[in-house]
């Protein structure tokens, strides 16, 4: 019984439902808007800014912006992709990402979006920060070198697992993920079956003893670029 809303993305007419965000309506219609922090089962975080689109000419994050009748959305433009590449570059250089050794390679959304947008290496200088690694938990391994501060683990643990294992601490470039314990992850009630252990888009929250169960070459984004599943819905 939801009200239908008609608008356009890059000139293509989309019919969405009242209450949907631009990204939800676009996904349903088979139009891929690049994104990183967004996860369909979690409240939109709006932090990575990769899904920035122009709504009637004004920049908005597609994951937080509700659709409205008659709006004109620009998504696939040269300028926006340039901004997106800058954002992806920023995420790479503020951390320590080493795709060639990373167990998440091929399943990593950061890597996949970078490839899709044509990034082979960041064009800005790396920061080479010192980041924490926490391997105290028997089943889960936490590596902040690869964290992109998307907040998925925070929302999943709080809203789905009802645990609140993760939260952001600090601010500015020092902002990071912390765990709900004085010392380390082993002192929390995080379990491998938790949603929070499942939603990390990069190689920060890793399940131990599962790393290479699926070999390189047979992974999610190895043969088709990220977003292909969404685009296959296009009628």
């Amino acid at each position: 019984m939801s009200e239908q809303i008609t608008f356009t993305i890059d000139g293509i007419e989309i019919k969405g439902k009242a209450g949907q965000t631009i990204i939800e309506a676009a996904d349903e219609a088979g139009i891929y808007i690049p994104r990183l922090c967004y996860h369909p089962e979690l409240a939109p975080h709006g932090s990575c800014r990769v899904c920035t689109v122009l709504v009637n000419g004004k920049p908005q994050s597609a994951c937080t912006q509700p659709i409205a009748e008659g709006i004109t959305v620009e998504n696939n433009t040269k300028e926006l992709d340039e901004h997106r590449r800058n954002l992806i570059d920023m995420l790479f250089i503020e951390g320590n990402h080493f795709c060639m050794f990373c167990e998440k390679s091929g399943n990593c959304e950061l890597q996949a979006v970078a490839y899709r947008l044509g990034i082979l290496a960041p064009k800005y200088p790396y920061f080479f920060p010192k980041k924490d690694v926490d391997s105290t938990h028997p089943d889960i391994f936490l590596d902040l070198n690869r964290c992109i501060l998307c907040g998925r683990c925070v929302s999943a643990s709080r809203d789905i697992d009802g645990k609140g294992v993760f939260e952001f601490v600090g601010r500015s470039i020092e902002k990071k993920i912390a765990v709900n314990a004085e010392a380390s992850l082993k002192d929390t009630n995080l379990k491998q079956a938790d949603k929070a252990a499942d939603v990390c888009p990069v190689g920060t929250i890793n399940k131990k003893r599962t790393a290479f169960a699926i070999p390189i070459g047979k992974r999610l984004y190895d043969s088709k670029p990220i977003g292909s599943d969404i685009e296959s819905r296009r009628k």
Partner: protein
Amino acid sequence: MDENLQAEVKQICQVCGNDRTKMMDIVRAVQEKFGQVSSETMNLIAKFVNCHRVEVESVVSFYAFLSKKPKGKVVIRLCNDVVDKMAGADVVADAFKKELGIDFGQTTADGKITLEYTPCIGMCDQAPAAIINDEVITYLSTDKVKEIVADIKKHYDPSKLKHRLGDGNNANEIVHSCVHNGIRKKGTVIFADYKSKSGLKNALAVSPVEVINIVKSARLRGRGGAGFPTGMKWQFTRAAAGEKKFILCNGDEGEPGTFKDRVILTERADMLFEGMTIGGYAIGAEAGILYLRAEYAYLRKLLEKVLKDRRDKNLLGKNILGKKDFNFDIIIQMGAGAYICGEETALISSCEGLRGDPKNRPPFPAQKGYLGNPTAVNNVETLCCVTRILEMGAGWFVESGSKGSPGTKLLSISGDCKLPGVYEFPFGIKVRDMLKEVGAEDTQAVLIGGPSGQIIGQNDFNRTICYDDLATGGAIVVFGQERNVIKIAAEYMEFFIEESCGYCTPCRVGNVLLKKYLDKIIAGKGEPEDLDILKQLGESIKTTSRCGMGQTSPNPVLTTLKNFRKNYESIVKKTTNGMQPTFDIRKALADAESIAKRQSVIFIK
């Protein structure tokens, strides 16, 4: 566990009703009592207010005035704003280091005195300045530092520091501050004589909708910088569905170079609270919150007293001035050192006891603001204008100022000028005329609206200050010919780096990158392409950042690139040897050499 600590923390939480949303009050009280919010204390707070420990840590780690590690009984925070440095803050800094025998970021061996830097504390007109616990000390010099340190070491109680008293309410015994108001020019709205109560009486004589209409016909726009029409904001808040509504006053002026709200809070608190009360009536709120920046804690007692006086006179409380069922009161929420909390949704987060992260919009505060209720957030000066509009009428208000920008604007002017201070000008004043009035000669550049505004050069001195041309929240800094605008831009970028909440990528990372490129250029290693990179990165930050702070944070770079392009072009040069000018082989090898415990045999010093 220390039972005494447990009892004290329990008591603090109890006073705050064991309320998670009062987290700011709780952690501030703990910090004040113990000089830190220790790991152990975080556990206790979490237990008493029934939240996760990491949530407490999340809040404590966000605000500059809170800390997990212990700080001295006395914390000296020297302002390192651009204007303070122009006035000699670096020399003062050295004097503090020498007298205390410690560096910035350190605490004396006896654990009693901590020395820190802090960004703009709202005292640019009397720089260099510092805050010592809650006490503000202005016009610092090396001699004064010697006296202060010697004095402090006698009693370790900053409230006992001997100093001359400022003017007006600064000399009031409950303020007892050396701060000067520095009101240089009184205009017709804020610093004119006014009749307390009369605006509120006039408001209560008509319906709330009519009050909104009066504010609308006065065409009042927000004085914080963004310039949103106040009447419209109130109309949205009034119309929004919700049992409870709130009016919040943004007393978190933190834009480097601004200090006009300091003077309003000191001399026109009554006018401000009256404006909040009128706003409360207009939108249908029973509660108002004044969010006061931690740097202005020295004004808190005065503000509490003004509130009490207003309660005693039935200007706050139940059935105000006999108006049946109009109940309204105001509380003060203290901040804890975070510029971003001046962003309205971050301010709301902070009032809710959270990190000062801005919120996603929509929903806008008018729909869902403080604790999910419809909320109007207004600037200090805006609310004062409301009081005057209701007192004198909308017609009177639109007589002053320019066509598109009625009324006056308070400008905080400092830097290279003879008469720094607060000026109340009618909107529409030319930059050139303003400079003449403040005694600025041979000016190279003017910062209009603080670093989030723009740095303009002589070509723009005929432009006017108003919403349609040079819009500003009021922070104006004058730079003489001898100043290096690129270095100034770099310093302001450092400010945005420190003050970014870190939520979104472009503001968190992009500003660090901009600063790196500026430093490279300043060091004489810049290449012509770097100017294009600065522009492109700046545009990306502007376009994709999540809140107003991020969207305006690259402005020091973008506006100097535009208005002082020659300054940049004169110091960048093409490299001819094919080498990366910033690459330092010795530095690059340092880590590896320390692991190998020997020096590279190929790249020797």
